[in-house]
């Protein structure tokens, strides 16, 4: 589970602990930004501001690094992230058509999040199972040998799962978006 980023809340203790452990390591900025993204799922502008203060590093430098590396997300990702492999093998087996179809269904392009906050689309390079090309991963699941026609059904499944998870949250009466987030290293 990720922590929700809330502007007025203090930084998650997990992130602060990590910063502490990195305090006197040289060149720690990228590692800290990785951690921030791991905790919150993205690194919004005002989080960068807070980090600038916390680390005593100029904001310009933090923003420079954040925008240089594709991996860092500045906008909040959807509940599920759809990553279309655009490695060579997948490209040749029709990955561009998958992206077109996803864009058509969700009304967004690569790097964007759907208006309802359900999905975001990413393009990634070879995920290492070219034998399955074209490959799409949704969160932790991999789908291989996909055709555009299968996408709507797959998205439907995740929509249903999101709704179910929400219901369970409500039923448990827990809005506990606690300050501690579980580390998920893959």
């Amino acid at each position, binding site marked *: 589970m990720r922590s929700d980023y809330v502007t007025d809340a203090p930084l998650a203790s997990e992130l602060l602990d990590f910063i502490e452990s990195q305090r006197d390591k*040289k*060149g*720690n*900025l*990228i*590692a800290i*930004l*990785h951690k921030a993204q791991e905790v919150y799922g993205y690194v919004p502008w005002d989080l960068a501001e807070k980090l600038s203060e916390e680390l005593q590093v100029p904001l310009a430098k933090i923003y*420079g*690094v954040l925008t*240089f*590396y*594709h*991996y*860092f997300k500045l906008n909040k990702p959807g509940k599920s992230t759809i990553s279309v492999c*655009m*490695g*060579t*093998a997948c*490209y*040749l087996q029709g990955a561009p058509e998958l992206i077109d179809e996803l864009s058509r269904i969700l009304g967004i392009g690569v790097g964007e999040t759907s208006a309802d906050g359900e999905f975001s689309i990413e393009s*990634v*390079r*070879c*995920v*290492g*199972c*070219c*034998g*399955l*090309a074209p490959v799409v*991963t949704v969160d*932790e*699941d*991999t789908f*291989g*040998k996909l055709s555009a026609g299968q996408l709507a059904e797959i998205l439907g499944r995740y929509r249903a799962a999101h709704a179910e998870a929400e219901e369970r949250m409500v039923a448990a009466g827990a809005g506990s978006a606690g300050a501690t987030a579980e580390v998920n*290293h*893959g």
Partner: protein
Amino acid sequence: MGYSRYDLESPYSQFCYVCSGVGCEQKKSEDLYRNIKNEVRNRGIGASVQVVRTGCFGLCEKGPIVKMLPEETVYIDVKPEDAAELVERHLVKSEIVTRLQLKDTARRPHLEVKNDRGHYQKQVRIVLRNCGKIDPENIDEYIAREGYGALDKALFEMTPEQIIEELKLSGLRGRGGAGWPTWLKWNFGRKAAAAAGTAYVVCNADEGDPGAYMDRSTLEGDPHSVLEAMTIAAYTIGATQGYIYIRAEYPLAIKRLETAMKQARDYGLLGENILESGFSFDIEIRLGAGAFVCGEETALIASIEGERGTPKPRPPFPTDSGVWGMPTVINNAETWANIPVVILRGGKWFARIGTENSKGTKVFALTGKVNNTGLVEVPMGTTLREIIYDVGGGMQEGKAFKAVQTGGPSGGVITAGHLDTPIDFDNLAKLGSMMGSGGMIVLAEDDCIVDVTKFYLEFSVEESCGKCAPCRIGTRKMFNILDRFTKGTARPDDLWNLEVIADATKKASLCGLGQSAPNPILSTLQYFRHEYLAHIDDETCPAGVCKDLMKYSIDAEKCIGCTVCARKCPVACIDGKSKELHVIDQERCIKCGACVAACKFDAVLIA
């Protein structure tokens, strides 16, 4: 290598390998592994059967994979619920579970080269020697296969000079792309370190080529080999700190490396006073963040230092001024994986494999329109024909071969006329391509050369760091021209423009990215100029890929007016009454091909 695991003195007589590579893990191989372990325990055969998790077998599309030794039986598509049957029948009753068995003998884990009689040769597997054979999360298994023997030998029996001499004898050249002799790099690093008083060693595991994954497989399947090699290098040049720069997109490899580093420290093989030799060295992992240019060594150094990863002019070379301005030896992950073998077997042994100027083996990621895709490790000097037809099992669905792309976005194509060229650094360069990191994409008649080239240029546009104008602007301009070719709007002088810009970008760019980004264009123009011309002069795409150049129409002779196509067309641009000829409105047609697939009477024509 001389022995296999089960002839070692081992308390076990049977081995069950469960793949835990990315492909299989996605298909619940972890549950499968747990179930098999439980079944083995419940049947009380745990003392003789060892259940091991391994790295990718290169059979991902058929995963999860289970391999049984000593029978060498490979099971595919094994579900967690199959565990009981597999254990009961294979391990207890010694019968083959034919239902799950991989029968297609052409399709073996880690593709191997056949000899003349169609048998699998004992392959010289150096880099992938342990992948799929040991549990990468268990240091004991690495040690049981001579792991850390090279480190022991280096620390206690060899001087740094002797190590460099052995590397020189081996003829090992870097596998990260440029093929720089490894001994030379270490030697420069060592001399500079002596003057500077400190130095760093770095493993480049950024693996940016969008069609390659050998570094990742090596790190997932055999992380200790890289740690051991880096420690040997550190001892040789006098470094006390190492970095592994790895893509954040490789979480499994990162996890395996972290586990391996911890185990190595516990065993006294990494950290303070290694093997009580008095020599200390430790390694830190640095995560890349999705920038291809960070594979370039000066950019990688900037990134390790926590900065934007923009390249710097060389010299100074990293061996003189690298991380924190100190001498730094950077090698590619696959290069590192070769080192322990060179040290243990000796440079002479290693140099017997390969060609005159390219020694050892190379791992390729074979993909595209061949029957067997996956990682292939072959001796340098193997021909493309052997790789594609013997290892790769030939072309998919009997398609006609068009070309092989090597070297990814920095490389080029090799045509049918050169299939018998022995592959090594120099021959590939002579043909206008390059070894690169080892992506090998087989293209068939139905792949459009212009479209493939556009793909690589799009990659370079996205990955150009923007620091220098020739690359930033040149790649964009070249992409735009190629885009016009694929859209049917290219101008007569575009071919000429393309060549001029390619040449300028190659000459004027600061780093390897810009310097090599035009290669896919230059190489395809050399061999497939006619395909470019067809896109302009005839306004056709010979491969039938570029949609904007295609026209869908309905054959009046064949159409029976069944209306199916009209109902399937997503933009409703097919008109016609039931039982009458249907017609496609060319203006509105988006060329999706749905009508072709829908028509049962082959009445829709593509031109």
